[in-house]
């Protein structure tokens, strides 16, 4: 028979024992020195990052923290930050807010990190926000395009790095008005907040589409769905197609057009999320040649552009400190955030505190050197990072070169509200010698 009655006491003995065991196993507090901030000792600074290392979202993203760590190791071997070596604690959140919350608790309460850097995912960052805010933990360069994180009031210690999807759509709209005036443009977009942000951006700058094709996330895997996109595009008479979706959607659209005999007949313009050639190569190798001639929006240089001083330096660091990893956009993103973090830590002074780090980012952050071509918008009143895009043509080998301006980068910058799109040629700060910040 069943044991519901006789287990009464056993159950509670177990409960009490379990909780007591957890309590006893609580780690002793770290040696406490009243003069230094949590996570900072005379010889080390501890930072933490949460990313999906396992699960469906892991491929690609799991390279970001190792790129960052490689850069930190390089800096450490060259004297560290004011004599302190940077330790990066990497935690897997499997792209789940539940796990993100518990591993962030671990980072803050057990590992006692000084700051978080490059934490990935919108919901994952959102889940830890309240605790991060309450504890005043600086959360630098969150790895998401959700525009909300730039809101200083709601996220006082959080710094966005990527431009928001809204800004990206405005920049693409500005680019279309500049270079594709009079063309018939169709839009394929993901039918959730990602795409809805984008629609708002396009309508803000008055972009007109001959067809707007929404797709539900995931449906791009269905060839019949892709078939209807192509039919709609052909029916609308469009000669230019903007894809504002994930990489697998870009790949599907390109593949569908090829099947329908439209190869070379349409000009493709891809949003930054869906335009990483390395990822397209991995997701749909057959679509890679079709990328030839497509135009993509980017804020970082092409990871294959070894002529770029930042990329060249990062590639060297990658070869030495990140053995076995192919240098791609994910590694670049990780190293770039690492370089910005090092400058922020240096700017916080010889005795860094969390408050000093925040103050340094607010006052000096916009002048930091980084691989991004647009300027950084950090200030006391705004935590928006990069503010613009350049447009590059992708060639068959996956490299991306500037479309116009005779090989020079032309930027389309904008803001996250009603500001116009401005064409500019801002030159980013030169890379510090050997990629080692001296600010």
């Amino acid at each position, binding site marked *: 028979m069943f044991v519901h009655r006789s287990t009464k006491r056993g*159950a509670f003995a177990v409960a009490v024992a379990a909780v007591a065991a957890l309590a006893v196993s609580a780690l002793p507090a770290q040696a406490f020195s009243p003069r230094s901030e949590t996570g900072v000792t005379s010889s080390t600074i501890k930072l933490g990052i949460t990313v999906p290392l396992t699960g469906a979202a892991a491929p690609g993203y799991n390279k970001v923290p190792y790129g960052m760590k490689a850069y930190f190791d390089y800096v450490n071997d060259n004297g560290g930050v004011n004599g302190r070596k940077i330790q990066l604690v990497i935690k897997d959140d499997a792209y789940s807010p539940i796990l993100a919350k518990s591993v962030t608790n671990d980072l803050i309460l057990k590992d006692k990190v000084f700051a978080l850097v490059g934490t990935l995912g919108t919901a994952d960052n959102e889940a830890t926000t309240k*605790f991060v805010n309450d504890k005043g933990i600086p959360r630098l360069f969150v790895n998401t395009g959700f525009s909300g994180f730039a809101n200083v009031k709601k996220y006082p210690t959080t710094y966005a790095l990527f431009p928001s999807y809204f800004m990206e759509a405005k920049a693409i709209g500005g680019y279309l008005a500049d270079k594709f005036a009079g063309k018939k443009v169709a839009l394929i977009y993901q039918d*959730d907040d990602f795409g809805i942000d984008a629609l708002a951006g396009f309508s803000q700058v008055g972009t007109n589409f001959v067809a707007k094709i929404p797709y539900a996330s995931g449906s791009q895997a269905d060839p019949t769905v892709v078939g209807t996109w192509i039919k709609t595009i052909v029916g609308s008479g469009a000669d230019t197609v903007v894809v504002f979706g994930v990489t697998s959607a870009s790949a599907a659209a390109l593949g569908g057009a090829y099947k329908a005999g439209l190869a070379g007949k349409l000009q493709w313009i891809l949003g930054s999320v869906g335009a990483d050639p390395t990822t397209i190569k991995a997701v749909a190798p057959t679509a890679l040649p079709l990328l030839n001639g497509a135009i993509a929006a980017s804020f970082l240089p092409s990871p294959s552009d070894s002529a770029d001083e930042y990329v060249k330096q990062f590639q060297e660091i990658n070869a030495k400190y990140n053995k076995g990893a192919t240098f791609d956009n994910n590694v670049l993103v990780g190293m770039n955030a690492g370089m910005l973090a090092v400058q922020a830590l240096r700017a916080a002074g010889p005795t860094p505190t969390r408050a000093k780090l925040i103050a340094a980012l607010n006052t000096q952050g916009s002048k930091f050197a980084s691989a991004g071509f647009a300027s950084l918008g950090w200030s006391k009143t705004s935590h928006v990072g990069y503010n613009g895009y350049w447009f590059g043509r992708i060639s068959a080998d996956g490299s991306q070169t500037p479309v116009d301006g005779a090989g020079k980068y032309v930027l389309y910058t904008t803001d996250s509200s009603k500001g116009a799109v401005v064409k500019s040629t801002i030159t980013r700060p030169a890379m510090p010698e050997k990629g080692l910040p001296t600010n």
Partner: protein
Amino acid sequence: MRKSKSLSALTFLAIGLFLLGLSNFVDELRVYQGAQIAVYVIAISSIILLTGYSGQISLGHGALMAIGGYAAVLSYTYWHLPFLLAFTVGALAAALGGFILGMAAARLSGPYLAGTTLALAVGLPSLANQFHILGGEQGLSFDIGEAPKWISNKTGGDFTQYKWFFWVSVVCALATIWFIKNLLQSRFGRTWRAVRGNPSAAALSGINIGRSKVLAFTVSSTLAGLAGALLAMLLGLVAPMAFTLTLSFTLVTGAVLAGVTNLAGSIVGAVVLVGIPEFTDAVATHLGGSEKISANLPGLITSVLLILTVIFMPNGPKLHKRKKVTN
């Protein structure tokens, strides 16, 4: 009988006070993990009630938790209900969902029921992407605030929000176990076991099998809804990613580890689920601190535990021991 009931009520109260008191002496990390355990206890016991006692299987409890979570957050945000009432709304909404699902479930069994509930777990959370009010991929934030002054003042010291989460979750978990324990000893509990044991015999003795199954599904869903609302509290948000298929599977794993016919085991299951990553972290640190190990080890250990449990102790650790004694 009455005496033993009041005695066990006292036991519950004592345990509650002990746990709440304990929260003053452990660090914040353990307090949060304690709250997580309490929430898992509720979720796992809802599965034990359904599978162990009424003999129905559900791979979709994550979806029912999502209903509870979203309903609680929406009612808290838009109707400005006190959070405990919002939790109640969450539980009731999940009850309604469970009632409807239960009507279908009562006609299905085995793999068909598993499939139906699985589909729910896959499909339902992504609905949030379709309706703007549900907040899309980044979800809706949910902050129940700090503990009321009359509680935090009395205990003295620093009453963190995590401690408040712990208090709320522990009280809910104890109330849940108390409720299920009594329910299982009542007429309903006996009916469920009769149906589970032999449906034909149960029908012959006048039990309405369909009704009994639907009731079990509804009660189980109510508790899952409560767990979902509490999970939303712990996370500070509801989002589709919080209620994935993995969550549903994790809960079933917890229930199997606990022994599906053993209510008390839900505590063991919950402690194991929360404790495994902690354990693997320690192991990985010993082995040289690679996060690649600590990231992959929990899944491996859970799977191995699950397989070992099913092979060696299919009825859970407790029953297994008992059988040996009677042999």
